């Protein structure tokens, strides 16, 4: 099988890779780039644990061919903070203890970041709708919603 050559930007860095055709974006991040913050959950696009941003838009890295990320800009949880500073959504999740086991957290934070970029002041209903594709099996949803609301000045401790 002819390997695929691709060149993309991951967390602000240009990367050139050669991968087997069946390589998924999730596998490429974990195995080839050693970015293990992106988690695999269901593997079929339902749970949201593998959420990454492609050109700023959330996608399921488990259902995107690595080859289809060619020429695009991918952001993972490792690339969200800048200069050693946490991204405001990361800080809000800490502040609100918006995680228990933490497995869904990278995906939750990236989805929330995309939501706030699209929509700087979402209502609670809009937050719930947008985040409905990210599942937390510890069922810590209330604190996740509050953390997102706090980024818009909505929820206060």
């Amino acid at each position, binding site marked *: *099988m002819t390997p*695929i050559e691709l060149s993309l930007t991951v967390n602000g860095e240009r990367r050139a890779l050669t991968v087997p*055709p069946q390589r998924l974006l999730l596998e490429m991040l974990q195995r080839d780039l050693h970015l293990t913050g992106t988690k695999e959950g269901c*593997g079929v696009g339902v749970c949201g644990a593998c959420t990454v941003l492609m050109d700023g838009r959330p996608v*399921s890295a488990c*259902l995107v061919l690595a080859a289809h990320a060619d020429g695009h800009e991918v952001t993972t949880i490792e690339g969200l903070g800048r200069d050693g500073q946490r991204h405001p959504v990361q800080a809000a999740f800490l502040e609100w203890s918006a995680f228990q086991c933490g497995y869904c957290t990278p995906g939750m934070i990236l989805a929330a970041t995309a939501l706030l970029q699209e929509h700087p002041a979402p209502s609670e209903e809009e937050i719930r709708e947008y985040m409905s594709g990210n599942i937390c099996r510890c069922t810590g949803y209330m604190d996740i919603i509050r953390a997102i609301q706090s980024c818009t000045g909505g929820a206060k401790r």
Partner: protein
Amino acid sequence: MRRFELLMPTSLDEASRLLREREGDVKLIAGGASLLILMKSGVYQPSCLVSLQRIPGLADVHFDPGEGLRIGALTTHRVIERSPVVRERLPVLSEMARMVANVRIRNTGTIGGNLCQADSHADPPPLLLALGARVRAKGGKGTRTIPLEEFLLDYYQTALQPDEVVTEVAVPPLPAGSTAAYLRHTVRSAEDFPCIGAAAVVEWQDGICRQVRLVLGGVAAVPQRARQAEALARGRSLTEPLIGQMAEAAAEEVEPISDFYGSAWYKKRMAGVFARRVLLVAWAQRTGR
């Protein structure tokens, strides 16, 4: 996932030629949101994929006065959901797109891929069928336009020839004075495929229902026109009792099979419930209630 070869043509002609050369064990991949699930589960394992991602010009959305909305095959559900031209010309299409799966899948899954997958429980087919959409495909013998009713043949089967590539979906403008609605009934979680999808397009004239197209998804291999229900309303003014009769007729004329989303008994009843609800919505849009 089983290993496969991945070819990335840069033109439609090249894609069509590759399909012809590899006839049989080859599949087109658009976004991959649905196809990769089938491949990961081992249900379908082609030895070669032809990707459309490097072919330019397949993701445009624009309005053409003659043909209506022309939506490129690689347009994602999310782009349809948010497109100003779709929202202006056919808001019901944007509202339906918003119901598809979750935001991540909508960012990856494409309208062309969705129609070619021909999943009997997908959201777009019933509404697009009610709207009279047509599929344009290009192959070795040129370009042809296929009404969606003739494009969707059976479970996971379309009328495409082996070397044809869907290039766009054309959705005609609603006739003046029409209203349209789409509703879905999910039985598990919000991002799931619907158990039942129900679409209604009603053409009004002086308060009278001139024509109605009522289409139910999830009840058969391909979306079903509820023609007996439609006939009940033609030339009459809609009332709640008449909509009730139409819903009963619609439930009567579909023959769902039991599957993942419910038993045949349950789906038949839900087909009636959602036929009624979608007609009430299309009716309320006209009266402004």
